[in-house]
């Protein structure tokens, strides 16, 4: 299935892009992070991140569907 990924902050720097479309068989965000993290060399452990699908924070094991927009959120530093 096709997944739209958005990257922010250090993950965007590491990926070298702010977004990308990927074809993936990952059934949930946890598997997807392992897959793209390996390809881009993300050093941050998933336990430090949150994940949003289609603009909403979700559980790492929520099933993904074709066309989903997925965002891995590194620890925030606003304020």
């Amino acid at each position, binding site marked *: 299935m096709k997944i739209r990924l958005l990257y*922010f902050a250090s993950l965007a*720097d590491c990926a070298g892009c702010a977004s990308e479309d990927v074809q993936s068989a990952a059934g949930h965000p946890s598997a997807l992070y392992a897959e793209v993290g390996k390809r881009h060399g993300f050093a941050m452990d998933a336990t430090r991140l949150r994940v949003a699908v289609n603009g909403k924070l979700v559980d790492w094991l929520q099933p993904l569907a074709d066309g989903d927009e997925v*965002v891995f*959120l590194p620890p*925030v*530093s*606003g304020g």
Partner: protein
Amino acid sequence: MNRFRLSAGAIDGEAEKRALTAESAGACVCFEGWVRNANDGRDVRRLDYQAFESLALSEGERILVEATQRFGLCAASAVHRTGSLGIGDLAVWVGVSAGHRDAAFAACRWIIDEIKQHVPIWKNEHYADGESGWLHP
């Protein structure tokens, strides 16, 4: 009235404060977060803020709604900058009005703490030595 906004341009704190006016309000507390010239022992020259806009807006709104209920506020709003900021610039503004000062002080403190912990906004610090780095505390 609850409002959380992102702003690519300068924040006008006085204008934001006027929107908190309510006849039932006996107290108004505002917090301004400014860009400091040093962090963690390093000289900072400027910052960039990046936001995941759709989720930042919904998370910010959720925090303001929860604060309004929890502290019985008359009004609450907050604005966070995005883009490039210099030393002394206003990075985040939080304001609340309430019947009495105890609720207003507590709510303003609670809101800025929640924003810093939950809203998907990231700070890239640019240092005097030319290096820069995203903060992921």
